[in-house]
């Protein structure tokens, strides 16, 4: 049999708007996203035989419900063999996709539903969010006692990158401007009502130097889901399935200060693996959905994957190459900086966006004739680099 027949393929995606929804329950974001994904796939819900929820951070009690099969029961899925949580922080989407594809390739699962939901916008206070992200994934022995937290962590990478490359604050701000342009075209993005200028970003409150408030993601409620099956079955179900062509990952640290290179991380190695497996190069990509919890990661991501030389990414954001209509459409949902950050969902949203674009379902922000996309994810304090290459055809 053709070895490609067992390859995993996306057949449906679902997503609810990212925002603040105090009036609804956290589980709504999970079941509504899952419902949309199943309907998008056009399959009978009872074809789902494996449910893979990822974790929610806002509430251990809610997360336990995800672990203990609430999604299966709420949706009335009658043929599910396993409900098994896969969690790797911000890399949950990539790790979930890899595990799900392995299950499909080996015949252990036929139709996998991956679901994310969280309530970090209304489930925790603003200071609660800061405090959560000054302990979650940060070493309690070696870093918490020194006032470490996620803005500082991004700032540490930014300052070293600036020192080594000469990147400017204007270039960093241009990443936010680019992502906002895409978010303006995305009904699910929180920040879709107003344009953003470099001047506005540069005038926003200083958090941890050189990082400013508008260069920081904000936490929101939200959810997303996708349905996978084998490449053999996908074309009979879905008019334009999206195939997993390659994936690569590198784990580089737990304690942030032990990262050997905070201005590069592990993207080059992870990207090489993913592109080699796909038999493609960055030049073949029609879009790049690069993880962007802060601007620095989106710049490093593009450079280390080979889309441009080191120190040159800023120019792509300033020139408009990454904007709608540009030559390198980048982070086309607006990313965590403009769609909003929902915990493990930041990269779930990027993965869904890559699939949405390739399926031709991206509405006003559709990248014309998109065939191949690269998507990235990272978890914790940028502990790993996960790269996924997707396409509408198998090269």
């Amino acid at each position: 049999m053709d070895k490609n027949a067992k390859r995993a393929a996306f057949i449906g995606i679902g997503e609810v708007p990212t925002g603040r929804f105090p009036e609804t329950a956290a589980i709504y974001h999970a079941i509504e996203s899952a419902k949309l994904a199943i309907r998008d796939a056009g399959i009978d819900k009872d074809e789902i035989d494996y449910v893979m929820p990822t974790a929610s951070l806002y509430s251990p009690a809610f997360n336990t419900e995800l672990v203990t099969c609430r999604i299966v029961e709420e949706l009335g899925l009658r043929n599910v063999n396993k409900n098994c949580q896969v969690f790797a922080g911000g890399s949950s989407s990539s790790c979930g996709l890899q595990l799900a594809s392995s299950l499909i390739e080996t015949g252990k699962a036929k139709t996998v539903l991956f679901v994310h939901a969280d309530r970090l916008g209304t489930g925790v206070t603003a200071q609660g969010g800061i405090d959560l992200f000054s302990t979650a994934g940060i070493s309690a022995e070696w870093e918490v006692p020194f006032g470490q937290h996620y803005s500082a962590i991004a700032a540490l990478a930014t300052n070293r990158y600036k020192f080594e490359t000469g990147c400017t604050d204007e270039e960093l701000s241009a990443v936010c401007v680019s992502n906002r342009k895409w978010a303006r075209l995305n009904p699910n993005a929180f920040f879709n009502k107003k344009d953003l200028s470099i001047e506005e970003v540069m005038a926003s409150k200083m958090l941890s130097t050189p990082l400013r408030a508008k260069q920081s993601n904000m936490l929101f409620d939200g959810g997303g889901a996708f349905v996978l099956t084998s490449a053999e079955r996908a074309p009979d179900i879905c008019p334009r399935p999206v195939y997993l062509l390659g994936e690569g990952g590198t784990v580089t640290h737990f304690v942030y200060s032990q990262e050997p290179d905070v201005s590069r991380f592990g993207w080059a190695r992870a990207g090489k693996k993913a592109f080699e497996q796909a038999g493609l190069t960055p030049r073949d990509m029609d879009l790049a959905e690069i993880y962007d919890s802060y601007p620095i990661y989106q710049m490093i991501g593009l450079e280390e994957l080979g889309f441009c030389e080191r120190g040159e990414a800023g120019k792509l954001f300033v020139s408009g190459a990454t904007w709608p209509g540009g030559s390198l459409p980048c982070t086309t949902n607006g990313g965590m900086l403009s769609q909003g950050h929902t915990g493990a969902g930041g990269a779930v949203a990027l993965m869904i966006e890559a699939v949405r674009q390739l399926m031709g379902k991206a509405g006003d922000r559709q990248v014309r004739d998109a065939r191949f996309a690269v998507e990235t994810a990272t978890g914790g304090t940028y502990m790993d680099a996960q790269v996924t290459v997707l396409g509408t055809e198998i090269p």
Partner: protein
Amino acid sequence: MTAIEKPVPVVNPWAKPFWDAANREKLVFQHCNACSKNIFYPRIACPDCFSDDLEWIEASGKGRVYTYTVVESNAPSAFVDDMPYVVAIVKLAEGIQLLSNIVGCDPHSVVCEMPVEVVFERLNNEFTLPKFRPI
């Protein structure tokens, strides 16, 4: 407003010699006798060669700032009163690196590759934190 107590290091038993030494104002790290690698943070086996023939040695306390940031707003609750404060990754002469604060200078005077040396700040009766100041 009640001041929120600073978080104290949650100490792993095998790292206790590090914190005991810090209380005596000494900065120590592990050295692997099998492969000669210097090790930080403390491990139960060498992360390079996996040997458990490790000994504690005293650091010179001198190094340079690999990278830094001045926290000006949105600090964790226990650090709000400290703003502005400098968080930095310091690379020691011995080749190991650690997170700390740069103190004893204008926070905005800190730059990458700035030479620094260790100073000790008592946190409470139980803990002393190694921090760094410009040389």
